[in-house]
């Protein structure tokens, strides 16, 4: 291997690593706030990318129908309680769960998003996919919010299966790519850097900074951190588990969908691509011990680099190498962290 190839592999690794880092952050966030190990994180990657593909091809994406159905279900379940709590509550619920999906659907079907500029298409894909996050939290996780981590994990796995099946139904078995956001490419010291790589890295960096500001400065960001640190304490401040859960899932869905949209021009996305992508984000998150955001991001970058270099040396064993990385990390953690018996 010469330097040229090494640099190329390094670039690949960093680009993929940036995506894994985003997913790792989302996974850490979801786990810290809700104790859910969010296996379906990867499905949001696929849904984001494939929804954009559908819009660009002039189809109504299946995720749109999913949003309508889930919205109706949430409205039906929460309607009676909202009715008792007053007109404003009810109006808010119906606006979010029925009117909003309806308006989006009208937009997709009536305003020919096929001919829109690409950034508007991206925005439309996001406003379709992101609401699925809080909707799924409401329907799937909220009824078992107090269950053990194990039950939540099994619910996650079941939801992952259902969403993959729906992905197949919505988008078919064919893989797709989207056109690059930028066709530009730059020569840097003999290395060709594609504009799309810069998009991915830049957007990821921006998103990470935005998340940092959100968690450090805004009241709701602080409320989520407080929930992650001490759930009982947060509830006593009136920060409800449900509110924190929905907000977290909103962020996780947005991060997932955006990740998918960013890599769609580089990688062919299939309905089930998300799972492996998400799992690699996981490896990063586990490296971070599901607790530390910077370590998780660094771990995810490491996964990206390891993957790209091992695909050069031993491509058949690429996945084995990446997933085996977890084990030494886990061992190291088990040797350095003292097991503390939880007190009631």
């Amino acid at each position, binding site marked *: 291997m010469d330097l040229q190839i090494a640099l190329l592999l390094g670039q690949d690794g960093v680009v993929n690593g940036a995506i894994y880092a985003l997913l790792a952050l989302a996974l850490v966030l979801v786990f810290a706030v809700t104790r859910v*190990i969010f296996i379906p994180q990867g499905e949001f990657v696929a849904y984001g990318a494939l929804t954009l593909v559908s819009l660009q091809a002039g189809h109504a994406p299946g995720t749109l129908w999913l949003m309508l159905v889930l919205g109706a279900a949430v409205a039906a379940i929460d309607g009676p309680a909202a009715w008792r709590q007053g007109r404003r509550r009810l109006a808010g619920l119906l606006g979010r769960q029925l009117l909003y999906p309806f308006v989006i659907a009208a937009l997709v079907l009536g305003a020919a998003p096929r001919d829109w500029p690409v950034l508007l298409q991206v925005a439309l894909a996001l406003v379709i996919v992101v609401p699925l996050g809080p909707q799924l939290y409401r329907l799937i996780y909220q009824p078992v919010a107090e269950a053990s981590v194990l039950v939540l994990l099994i619910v996650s796995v079941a*939801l992952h299966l259902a969403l993959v099946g729906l992905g197949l139904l919505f988008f078919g078995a064919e893989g797709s790519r989207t056109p690059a956001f930028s066709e530009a490419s730059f020569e840097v010291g003999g290395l060709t850097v594609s504009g799309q790589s810069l998009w991915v890295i830049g957007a990821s960096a921006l998103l990470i900074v935005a998340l940092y500001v959100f968690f450090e400065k805004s009241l709701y960001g602080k409320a989520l951190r407080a929930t992650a640190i001490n759930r009982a304490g947060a509830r006593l401040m009136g920060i409800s588990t449900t509110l924190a859960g929905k907000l977290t899932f909103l962020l996780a869905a947005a991060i997932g969908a955006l990740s998918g949209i960013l890599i769609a021009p580089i990688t062919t996305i299939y309905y089930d691509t998300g799972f492996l992508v998400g799992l690699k984000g996981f490896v990063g998150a586990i490296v971070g011990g599901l607790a530390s955001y910077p370590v998780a991001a660094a771990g995810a970058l490491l996964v990206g680099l390891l993957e790209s270099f091992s695909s050069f040396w031993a491509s058949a064993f690429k996945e084995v190498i990446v997933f085996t990385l*977890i*084990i030494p990390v886990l061992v190291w*953690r088990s040797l350095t962290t003292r097991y503390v018996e939880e007190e009631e």
Partner: protein
Amino acid sequence: MSRQRLILGVALALLALGPLVLPEFYITLLNYIGLYALVALGLVLLTGVGGLTSFGQAAFVGLGAYATAALTTATALPAWLAPLANPWGGLLAGLLLTALVALLLGLLTLRLSGHYLPLGTIAWGISLYFLFGNLEFLGGHTGISGIPPLRFGGFELRDGRHFYYLIWVVLLAAVWLTSNLLDSRAGRAIRALKGGALMAEAMGIDTGRAKMVIFLIAALFACLSGWLYAHLQRFVNPTPFGLHIGIEYLFMAVIGGAAHVWGALLGAAVITVLKQWLQDLLPQLFGATGNFEVIGFGLLMIFMLHRAREGLWPWLTRWFPASARRPASAEFAAEPLPARAVPPAGTPLLEVKDAVKQFGGLVANDRMSLGVASGEILALIGPNGAGKSTLFNLITGVDPPTSGEVRFLGERVDGRSSRAIARMGMSRTFQHVRLLPGMSVLENVALGAHLRGRHGVPAAMLHLERAEEGRLLAEAARQCARVGLGEHLHDAAGSLPLGKQRIVEIARALAADPCLLLLDEPAAGLRFLEKRSLAELLRQLRAGGMGILLVEHDMEFVMDLADRVVVMEFGKKIAAGLPREVQSDPAVIEAYLGGVD
């Protein structure tokens, strides 16, 4: 014959008659249900009972299947492997290989708490799957075909109807072994894993070893299932050993009722049939072909977890309540267990010298010293937060002291594990009751006698330890009767009022036959009469030569009972002496009565 036995008998008879009447399709279905149930059974033990979750069992099935496939089809084996080139050699090699891999993975991952373990199993589940698909000599993604059928003497098992009997005999044997195990001393230790390591270790249970044992058993059951699968199909490829199938095994255990051996069978049956049905139905519904059954499958799974988190088995058994007769305490007639020699009254048992415990900047115990002799009750009192429980933890080996020393029976014990200290004859209760709420009072108390038995897992699985088990239960029943719980032997410990649960803790500590008993607030939540009989019991124990260290808030109780009193405040000893002296000590009055002006 009880009703449960009757149901079991009828079910077995139907099972035996099955192949004579059922069409081929159902035989195949039942064969797969049996193979899956064997893996799920391991998960019941591992996850449902032991609280350790694994998504990677399919990889162990793969090890079993590939080991026999590779050995029985290889054309050029090195000479030393040649004797293994048959199905039985394959089975042996598979079990050994699986045990080795499980031991290694267990050493690496079982120490991890909570959610790390399932994530770790996802990782090695995926890694082994990709390994099966990428190793040349295992046939890559195409797999290995031409595996010979099993042979018993001259009889070849080529027909699914014949294989059926083998699968179900193996499965039922595994169910029998597992139920035997759970109903034994070793099984109680396994069931105690879910109640937290702290209590189990204080009873002398090696929790690390217990975890490893169930991990190995679950892996070996999975391997056995893989071996059967390879010789039934006579062909293997990586697909059935992937992570998704590993997930399905876990679903089976959870849906069936992860804490019940028969739940494994029920879960395997429900999921296999459900998948079959959805596979037929959904493509018609959607008008396209594809892997659509996972949608319905995932949603049904979520629905069941919302409705019946404990699985289907407990829900089903509500219709068939158990009718077993449960013996009263007097009926546990067995030769008593050997008892510890009682040291003569006045022998120093416990000596704490200048013990310091710091947590970061906080000094929880500051140069604490005290001693307890046999035949003596020492009361340790002080306001909440004074550091009494911390001192308890230093003495019992839960936490090592930062400096200073703890001697028990003349030996230095600071730094030793709580298990080792328990073995020397120190036993304790916990301030926050640590019982296994779903287990009977009798079994909870029998946990305390853990160190007085010696038979291990193999004997328990074959029920060769019944005599010893009878003596352990008799001892537990005797201690229950002694503390006045004779009527509650078979009640679930969690169904007793909190005060009574504290008494169960005392009985459990007594079942260990200690020479030093540490009681953390035993009288909290007791009513007047209950307190009086507790005091009476402690006096008897003292008269019998036991040393007792008592933390208690109830002054009346303490002052009537204790020989000497030590008072703590802010981690320090502020007074010590006879009850009367301590009561009139101005520092004590200030500490206890406080006041704001």
